[in-house]
């Protein structure tokens, strides 16, 4: 744009053609400059017209409509003087239409309608024939102004208004398409606010008159028109609106698929459409909404302003709001479908600096997708940084640390951070519970920590559970956790008391029920325990842990206890199979499967995985064992839920094997172990342990010793393997080593009374009678309160 206005006046023709071009492209400022250069006397009507038009358009372009209202007045003056000339002038119609437009803008709807009538536009619009571009726009505007003026007036003929508006929108879109065809792609034309509103107005008119179905069709028509660079913004809004209408007004029962027959309607006034066999046509409501939202998101995110200068602040916020609106709709629509798509947020990170909402939604989506928990924690920490007063992100991060990452220390840190910033009473109780839970987990998992530290954490846990109860006595959760902690400390009566309160507040709380059963069993009230267990199974027929406990209870209680228990175990295997096969069943029983409640199982699972990877690298030809390798590889690709199920499955097999051993059916037990290790892989420490037991039962002590050693080399924290190893050494006569392993076992789990008893007899043989008797006393005391299964089986990581 280097031509100057200082040089000699251009020839009139050149000037006019330049004006014409600029008009077409909507460069109104330039137009005004050029029009003002035209000699006034030569063709006053034309000059008046041009001045009127450019001023009107400039007025429409300006943001603050009030301050530039003088422009509008001037425009009107020019146009009126143009119209007041002879009505045979070729400009008469155009000028009148422009005048109608300016009347419409200033709110004189009747005047506007009158002008349209006078203009004689109706003669042009009788037939839909190809029109020159400029006329096309004029006609479109006349329809738009007419439709919207009628709408503002008393006119109740909605049909007519809607026809006007649809024609206006069709014409506008076609006009833009034609322009693009003429000037090539990437030309952006601004059609002005009147036409832009008209495009959207028809559908809104339909909704307002209660014809939602028609409105949907109208919107689809708009979306089906081929896009042009100039319509991208409109399409962004329209696709979002259509998605909104379907989400808020068209449920599945009334949704109808897209009628592809409209793609074939054509004419010079109809927009060009997308059509063809290969195109994706939404067949369900979900497909349509998602398609519209991703289109809208794509278009909206293009326009987000990245500049952070103050002069762009407003447009940046606006463009951000625009794209956030789409994200919100996506979240609203995706969440009930359990489809957690976070890559749109990933893309949004480019412009989301310090935007808490997007970060928070990103973090929660990632958390729910269960894909990268560690990353979700980092995101939550960033959210916490953006808003230093919100305890929620810290708590959610803490929840992930406990549930998915096995990082109780980190969870504790985050929960304490939440405590510092919390001022919400409703949340306070929960925060105390989480602090307590994390502290308890630190104690229960860290087998090595100093005793003093351990007891500090244990105290902290109990203190926090009590605080939680104090803050909100009507929540069952702290009672449960308190009861579990007490039970693990063998304060059985107190534990039962709290468990009962928890059950009063939430009679369906499975972990509490499980705990209560174990508590009863540790008081040796096996009858009551079994009754409670059976009653609970009425309500939760497929709850695996309950079945597992039941099998153990049956074993001690019933006459043919072991056979009955075997039957229960069989049922459990069936449940496991069903749960592993279908997604749906997982909800029913897999959800609460958390047999071990201890984390070294997951850790050793990881270990086994690593080992099997080594095995597959180092001994590539040994693919005969491929079964096992695929087995443990399958474990690595599973999510946490199915890993737990997998783990549980192993335990059921072990239960069966142990029952066989106890029934003295060694060969059955053997085949059971072999069969199971074929499924789960030879590297499972549980099976090595089991083989050890088997050998021990057969009296093959040396083999047993090797098996136990193998087991603890994979999982050095397996208290029972250590215990058995110690005992085996004892039986083999190596009492010093036996003493060492039994000590190790006690370090891991001091609540196993068998270990204490073995320890006692080892010390006895070694001649340390005093300590031997102390050990035996401890064993006796522990045995008096020992539950049928370790309290460790009750899950600690319970949030609801």
């Amino acid at each position, binding site marked *: 744009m280097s031509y100057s206005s200082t040089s000699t006046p251009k020839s009139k023709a050149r000037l006019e053609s330049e004006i014409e071009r600029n008009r077409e492209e909507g460069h109104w400022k330039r137009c005004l400059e050029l029009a003002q250069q035209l000699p006034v006397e030569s063709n006053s009507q034309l000059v008046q017209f041009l001045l009127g038009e450019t001023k009107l358009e400039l007025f429409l372009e300006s943001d603050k409509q009030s301050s530039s209202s003088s422009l509008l007045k001037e425009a009107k003056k020019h146009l009126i003087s143009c119209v007041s000339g002879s009505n045979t002038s070729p400009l008469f119609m155009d000028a009148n239409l422009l005048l109608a437009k300016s009347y419409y803008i200033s709110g004189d709807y009747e005047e506007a309608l009158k002008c349209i009538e006078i203009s004689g536009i109706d003669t042009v619009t009788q037939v839909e024939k190809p029109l020159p571009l400029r006329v096309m726009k004029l006609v479109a505007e006349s329809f738009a102004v007419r439709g919207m003026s009628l709408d503002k007036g008393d006119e109740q003929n909605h049909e007519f208004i809607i026809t006007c508006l649809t024609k206006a929108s069709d014409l506008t879109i076609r006009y833009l398409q034609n322009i693009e065809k003429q000037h090539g792609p990437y030309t952006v034309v601004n059609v002005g606010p009147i036409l832009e509103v008209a495009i959207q107005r028809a559908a809104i008119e339909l909704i307002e008159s209660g014809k939602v179905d028609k409105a949907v069709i109208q919107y689809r028509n708009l979306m089906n028109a081929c896009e042009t660079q100039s319509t991208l913004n409109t399409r962004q809004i329209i696709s979002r609106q259509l998605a909104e209408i379907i989400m808020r007004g068209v*449920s599945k029962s009334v949704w109808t698929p897209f009628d592809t027959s409209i793609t074939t309607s054509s004419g010079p006034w109809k927009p060009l459409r997308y059509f063809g066999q290969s195109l994706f046509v939404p067949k369900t409501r979900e497909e349509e909404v998602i398609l519209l939202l991703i289109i809208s998101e794509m278009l909206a995110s293009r326009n987000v302003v990245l500049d952070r200068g103050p002069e762009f602040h407003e447009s940046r916020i606006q463009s951000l709001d625009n794209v956030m609106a789409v994200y919100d709709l996506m979240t609203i629509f995706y969440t009930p479908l359990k489809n957690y798509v976070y890559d749109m947020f990933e893309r949004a990170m480019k412009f989301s600096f310090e935007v808490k909402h997007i970060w928070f939604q990103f973090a929660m989506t990632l958390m729910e997708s269960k894909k990268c928990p560690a990353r979700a924690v980092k995101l939550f920490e960033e959210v916490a940084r953006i808003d230093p007063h919100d305890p929620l992100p810290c708590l959610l991060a803490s929840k992930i640390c406990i549930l998915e990452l096995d990082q109780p220390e980190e969870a504790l840190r985050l929960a304490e951070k939440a405590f510092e910033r919390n001022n919400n009473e409703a949340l306070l109780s929960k925060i105390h519970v989480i602090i307590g839970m994390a502290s308890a987990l630190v104690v229960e998992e860290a087998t090595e920590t100093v005793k003093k530290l351990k007891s500090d954490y244990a105290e902290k846990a109990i203190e926090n559970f009590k605080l939680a109860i*104090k803050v909100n006595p009507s929540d069952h959760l702290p009672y449960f956790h308190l009861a579990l902690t007490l039970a693990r400390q063998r304060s059985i009566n107190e534990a039962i008391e709290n468990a009962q309160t928890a059950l009063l507040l939430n009679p369906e709380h499975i972990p509490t029920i499980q705990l209560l059963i174990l508590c009863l069993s540790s008081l040796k009230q096996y009858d009551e325990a079994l009754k409670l267990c059976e009653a609970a199974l009425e309500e939760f027929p497929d709850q695996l842990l309950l079945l597992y406990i039941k099998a153990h209870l049956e074993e001690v209680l019933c006459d043919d206890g072991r056979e009955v228990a075997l039957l229960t175990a069989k049922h459990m295997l069936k449940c496991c199979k069903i749960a592993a096969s279908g997604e749906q069943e997982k909800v029913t029983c897999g959800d609460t499967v958390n047999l071990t409640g201890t984390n070294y199982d997951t850790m050793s699972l990881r270990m086994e995985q690593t080992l099997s990877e080594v095995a597959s690298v180092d001994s590539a030809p040994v693919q005969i064992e491929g079964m096992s390798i695929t087995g443990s590889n399958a474990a690595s690709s599973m999510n946490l839920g199915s890993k737990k199920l997998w783990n549980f499955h192993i335990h059921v097999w072990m239960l069966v094997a142990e029952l066989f051993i106890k029934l003295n059916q060694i060969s059955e037990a053997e085949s059971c172990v072999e069969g199971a290790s074929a499924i789960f892989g030879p590297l499972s420490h549980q099976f090595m342990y089991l083989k050890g037991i088997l050998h021990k039962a057969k009296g093959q002590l040396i083999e047993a010793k090797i098996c136990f050693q193998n087991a603890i080399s994979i999982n050095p924290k397996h208290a029972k393997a250590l215990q058995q190893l110690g005992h085996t050494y004892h039986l083999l006569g190596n009492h010093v080593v036996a003493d060492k392993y039994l000590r190790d076992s006690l370090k891991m789990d001091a609540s196993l009374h068998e270990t204490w008893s073995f320890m006692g007899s080892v010390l006895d043989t070694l001649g340390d009678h005093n300590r031997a008797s102390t050990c035996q006393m401890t064993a006796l005391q522990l045995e008096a309160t020992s539950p049928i299964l370790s309290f460790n089986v009750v899950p600690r990581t319970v949030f609801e």
Partner: protein
Amino acid sequence: MARKVLINDWLSEFERVDKLTVSQLQSYAISVCNYPDLINDLFDALHDTAFHEQYLEKICDQLFKFYRSKEDRLRLFTLMFIPTLIGIHLTNCYNVDKKLYRCVDVLLLSIYNLEIVDEEGEILNRKFRLPSMVRPSIFHEPSSVSSQNSALTEHALLRLESGGGDQTLSSFGPHVEYDVINCGNRMIIMTVLLKVYNHYLSSVPKQSYLALCKMAIKVMRYGSNNCNTKLENSANAENSNFTNYSKFISRKCAKIPLSSEFLVQLLNSVYFCMFNGVENEGFEALEEIYNRAFVNLYADVLMMSMAIKNSLRVNPSGQPRDGPMGISVALSPTSTTFSSATSGVSKAAITNASFRTKKLPDDIPIVTNSSSHPHLTSINEENEEVNEKEKIPKPSSATSTKQASSGGILPVNKIPMLQLLKERKDKKKEANTTAKIIKVRSENGDLIHRSFTETGDANAGVESDTSGISEPKSDYGSENEMIPLNTYTSKKAFNGEEQNSNCSSNTSSNAMVVPLLSSNSESRLSSTSIHQEMNVKLNDEIVCETYK
């Protein structure tokens, strides 16, 4: 009394419904469905516990009869009461007077069992295809808009892995048939019933929307009112001894346990109702659900309710009161300013689409060995300095990985930060060169470095984006101080993760003395996921122990 009359009349039609011909049935259905007084009375009767003894069973019977009839309108008539029936079921599942409410259970269970199968009795498993921008549709053409958005995200990879075909998701089912409602399946059944109800939302009369919101509020608040006053008294009386609370705890204090899936579906219905005439109750229900999710830390419910709240607060999506369905003329000003924003004043603004990353030169001048030494040390010093700074507010974090992770998240101090960041950036360049040197000097250190970059790749989606962003900005920064100050810090803060991996790679190469063993296990685990990276330390412990 009038209510009784209407309901009695309706109940007496019980017998008749069976014997009607198809056309009679149809006209009867139309008349029943368009009888607002009757519908209102039925809702009132279901809400009013005083009516339950006399009417509940009969109403349920009649509703079931309607549901089983071949006329779709009659089926809808029953479906409109689903929320209310769910409410009755949930508030009475521990009721001593269980027998009275058994009819509701039966009705709900039968509807459930019939809804999860198709006409042939096969379990329904409705699926839908996940649309993608890559495939042209009747609404868009991929070439023009999506090219700039083809970042290779995890999601995109997943699609490629699945063979490029349509990814399908389940929209309904498969669900299991049940013989009885028990604690184990209650929430599952109720969730599915709400889902079914959501399918018919547009077809049921508006009274049902109000009933739904009321149900949501009632179920959410259940139990909270009964307890508080008593407990406050006791809290004042005996402040210290917590066990005393248990005396005051009764079943009446118990809240109804609700699963997050149920709440999500409920939220879905509430969202619809909110835009269809029951604005105030809808807001109230939304608030209650949000509070429940807040206290229970249900991320999915929180996410959805926060999305709804935000979309109501930020205008583009419209408000329920803006007009039907929140779609309104109000958007025309936004559209005008928006379009003028793209064509007019702010043309100069860099948008997401217009933004282009500058490519850095492939070759970075090689620093000679002699001069690299001071550089190397200076890097390390500064790095440690940074780490020290970051460490101060967090004395608890002990391990190097943790330190690095907290580093990216700390508040960024703007003024000295620019300087600092520039330095860091320079360092980053140098880090590449130093890495080469390390490679020459020690195979071990190189191994560690590589393992870290590999783990970083798990985040390739973000990082490839961000690394592009931060680079050219620095040039920009020297030209114009005003604009990039903000952007600059933003990118940096956001680059946290990437830098972390750099930092940690530095620290780990410092600590090259780390036994070979640990680096091996790291590199092996690194390929799987970050998750495992976090646990590498733990694993190391085990390994060390085994070798002890």
